[in-house]
Each structure stands twice: as structure tokens, then as C-alpha cells.
């Protein structure tokens, strides 16, 4: 079989149209780097969001007259909620101890009495819920007998909700733009390559080459551009990851890493860019060359 010949023709296309190939490879590198950065930043943000969401705290302040029975009802309610991962009861005395720890003074010395209410600190895992779910349960708790007030940082949840979708949407938009630009530029290079090789294509048709035989070198050329672009992007991303960890390591809760989904995704995206770009040009231009 002459697969070696076809691969050689693919490589020769790359070296024949050096400048356009270089531009296409560079575009793929830039596009994939952008995608990689989006992925790294996105996963980091999502990780951060999840940290906040999985350890979200709600405080339930009890009325002075709350009874044992009221507390049992409240605890039953908390136990039955899917959102709640745990809770602590803080009695008036516990609250006074905390006050002393935080402010360094005994509340009885300051006020002669302990006005601090008993309360519950409730931990919620809100990763799979939005702020409305939290509002609903907070409202229900607020209406229960013995409960004075339910407090939580609703604004934080609302922000997280809003920005999670913004991050996803932004990432998606970047992806689409990058994909479009890369496909257009690869397509353009392959078009130039087809134009440069129109004589070969004509003569191949003349001597009885099938369409597949004629197209294969250009597909290989496109894929090669994709792989080279991906290699460039991986090198740049590696630099970004190492640089970020070195400069910002102390601020980050976890270091940035080049994980396999990232590496595999970049290589796969490079190949897809090359493949789609070349296929588009091949479909549009090769059939115009005839003998």
C-alpha cells in the first residue's frame, strides 16, 4: 500500500506553504491555549465555588422561651432535609464562651446578663441546589415554633448562582469563537495548499487516482497542523501552569495542574480543528479541479 506516499505528500504540503501553515499552526496554538486557560481558570473557579457551596452555613437563632420540644422539632426538620450535612447546637452558655474567646471579655462583666440567644449552626451542601432552595428551607425554619430568626448569606449564594452560569456561558462563547477562527484559518491554509498542488491533483485525476487518494494528503496535512498547534499550546500551557504556581502558589488553595483531561482534550481539539478545517476546504475546492 502507498500510505507512506500519502503521508509524505501531506508533509510536503506543510513545507510547501510554509507561511500559511505557520499562521494556521500559530492560530491553533493560540486558540487551544485560550481554551486551556479557560479550562484551568474555569475548573479553579468551579472548585472555589464548590468549596463555598459545600460548606454553606445557616444560623438559626432561638427565642428565649424555646422548649426542648421545639428543639426536637427543629432537629427533626434539619435531619429530614437533603441540603443539611450537619448541625451544632449552641446553647446560651456556649455563646457566652464564644463571645469571651472572640472578644476577650466575659459577657456577664460587660452587661451583667447574657443576652446571647441559643442557636443552631447548620452546614449545608448547596452544590446541587440554587439559592431559592435555601430560601425555602430557611423560611420554613423561620416559621417554626421557638425560632426567632434565620440568618445566612443569601447574597453570596445569589452571586455564586449568577456567576457559575456566567463562567459556563463565557467559556462556551470563547470556545465557539476560537473554534470558528481556527477552522477558518486551517481551511484557508488547506485551500492555498490545494491551489499550490492543483497541477498534481489534475494529473492524479488524469492517471486514475480516486477522490479518496487525492484527498487523503490534505486531510493528513490538516491533522498535522492540528497536532503541531496542540503541541505548541501544551508547551505554552505548561509554562502558564508552572509560572502561576511559582508566582501565586502561596495564594492558591490548590496548585494548578495539567491533568489528563486537559492534555487529551487539547490534542483531540487540535486534531478536530485540523480535520474540520481541511475537510471544509477539500469539499469546497478539490472538486473544482478536474481533468
Amino acid at each position: 500500500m502507498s500510505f507512506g506516499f500519502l503521508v509524505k505528500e501531506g508533509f510536503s504540503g506543510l513545507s510547501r506553504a510554509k507561511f500559511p501553515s505557520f499562521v494556521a499552526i500559530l492560530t491553533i496554538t493560540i486558540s487551544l491555549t485560550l481554551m486551556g486557560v479557560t479550562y484551568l481558570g474555569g475548573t479553579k473557579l468551579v472548585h472555589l465555588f464548590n468549596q463555598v457551596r459545600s460548606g454553606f452555613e445557616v444560623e438559626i437563632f432561638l427565642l428565649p422561651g424555646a422548649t426542648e420540644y421545639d428543639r426536637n422539632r427543629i432537629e427533626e426538620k434539619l435531619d429530614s432535609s437533603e441540603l443539611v450535612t450537619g448541625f451544632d447546637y449552641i446553647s446560651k452558655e456556649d455563646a457566652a464562651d464564644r463571645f469571651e474567646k472572640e472578644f476577650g471579655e466575659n459577657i456577664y462583666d460587660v452587661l451583667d446578663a447574657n443576652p446571647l440567644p441559643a442557636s443552631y449552626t447548620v452546614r449545608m451542601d448547596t452544590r446541587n441546589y440554587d439559592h431559592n432552595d435555601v430560601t425555602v428551607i430557611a423560611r420554613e425554619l423561620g416559621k417554626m415554633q421557638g425560632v426567632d430568626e434565620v440568618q445566612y448569606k443569601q447574597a453570596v449564594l445569589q452571586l455564586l448562582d449568577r456567576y457559575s452560569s456566567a463562567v459556563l456561558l463565557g467559556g462556551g462563547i470563547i470556545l465557539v469563537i476560537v473554534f470558528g477562527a481556527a477552522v477558518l484559518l486551517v481551511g484557508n491554509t488547506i485551500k492555498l495548499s490545494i491551489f499550490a498542488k492543483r497541477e498534481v491533483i489534475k494529473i492524479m485525476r488524469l492517471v486514475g487516482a480516486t477522490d479518496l487518494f487525492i484527498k487523503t494528503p490534505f486531510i493528513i496535512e490538516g491533522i498535522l497542523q492540528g497536532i503541531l498547534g496542540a503541541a505548541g499550546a501544551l508547551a505554552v500551557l505548561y509554562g502558564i501552569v508552572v509560572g502561576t504556581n511559582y508566582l501565586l502558589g502561596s495564594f492558591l488553595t490548590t496548585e494548578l495542574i495539567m491533568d489528563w483531561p486537559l492534555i487529551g482534550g487539547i490534542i483531540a481539539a487540535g486534531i478536530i480543528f485540523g480535520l474540520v478545517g481541511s475537510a471544509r476546504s477539500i469539499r469546497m475546492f478539490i472538486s473544482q479541479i478536474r481533468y
Partner: protein
Amino acid sequence: MIYFYNVSKTFGRGAGVQDLNFNVHKGEFVCIVGPSGAGKSTILKLIYMDEKPTDGKVVVDNFDSSMLQKDGVPYLRRRVGMIFQDFQLLRDRNVYDNVALALRVMRIRRKKIKKRVLQALNNVGLGHRAQYYPQELSGGEQQRVSIARAIVKEPIVLLADEPTGNLDPQVAREILALLRRINEQGTAVVMATHNYNLIKNTPYRRIRLEEGKVVDS
């Protein structure tokens, strides 16, 4: 082997061929003569099915123009060799690779390709020029390379479209002699030429064309 049944081919601008009926038999040498624009090239294009008849049908070997799909054309082309006035060689590869291309597209093994290419080059007297590039050769030698490329796939017919148009008379006669030798080896030849002087002393059948019609055959 080649059959034209009531074949007409019209183009937008009006030129073409009308109502052609003729056959070319196995191993025959046929000359298509006529002035420029008479339709000689069109006949050859109909044979290698670069054009399809507007009316009628062309049958070459087992390929019938009325049935043949686009993806079948390459397989017809493998049975038909073609040479042209302007040689149609690739300047970016040497003589060997130009000739070998005809076999590579057929996905023949490299070892076999080498043997057949060198045989074909020897057959046209260019065994010593395999590593040369087309632009390093004379016009006559370039036409020999294109003949080698046409015959290396052992076609049933060699189509020659004004093969001597760019060559001086002495070289033209040499090319004609080479075509005759190839014909004697069993390959049919269909040659289109407007140069009647070149073929007037040959015994070959002539199909004379004028304005797309056969006036004498």
C-alpha cells in the same frame, strides 16, 4: 473496444461534435485529423470520460458512459493512457516519480512500481534520465516521459492529443515512431492531430473531422 453510438456533445458556446458513430478495435492505430476546433480533443475527452455525451453513448472496454458514475471514472482512466501537447509533467518531482505516480495512485507495491517504471523508461529510451527533472530535459524527452507515464499502467489504448504540436519535425517523427512501436507491442493508439503531413505516409486509419462531424473515415 471503443464504441461511439450516435454521440453528440454540445457546449454552451456551440462547438462540439455531432452524431459520431465509429469503433476503435483492439491494437488498432487510428488518427483523428482536422483543423483546430473541429472537435478532435472533444472525442478524446469523451473516451477518457472527462466529458459525457449530450446524446448517445461511448463505451470503452467495459465502461459505458451512460451508466458510469463519477467515482467509476478513475478506474476507466487506469485502462487508458493519455499524452498531451504540453506533456503535463510535474516539475517538482523527477522523471522516475512522474512515471511512478500513475502506479502509486493504483496502490501498487513499491517493488513492483520500481520494476515497471524502469521498464517503461527503457521502453521510451530514457532509462538513463530517471533522476532528471522535467525542466532539465528537451521537449522530445519530456514527451517520452509522458508516454512512459501513459504506458506504465499497461493501458488498452493510448490517447494522444496533438502529441507533436510543440516539437520540431525531426523530433515529431521520432515520437510518432515511438507511438508506432508501442502500437506494435499491442496497445491501441488514438492520435488527434491537425498536422496531416505527419501522418500522410502512414498506413493508419484516419477519421477526418470538420466542424464536429466526421467527413471521412
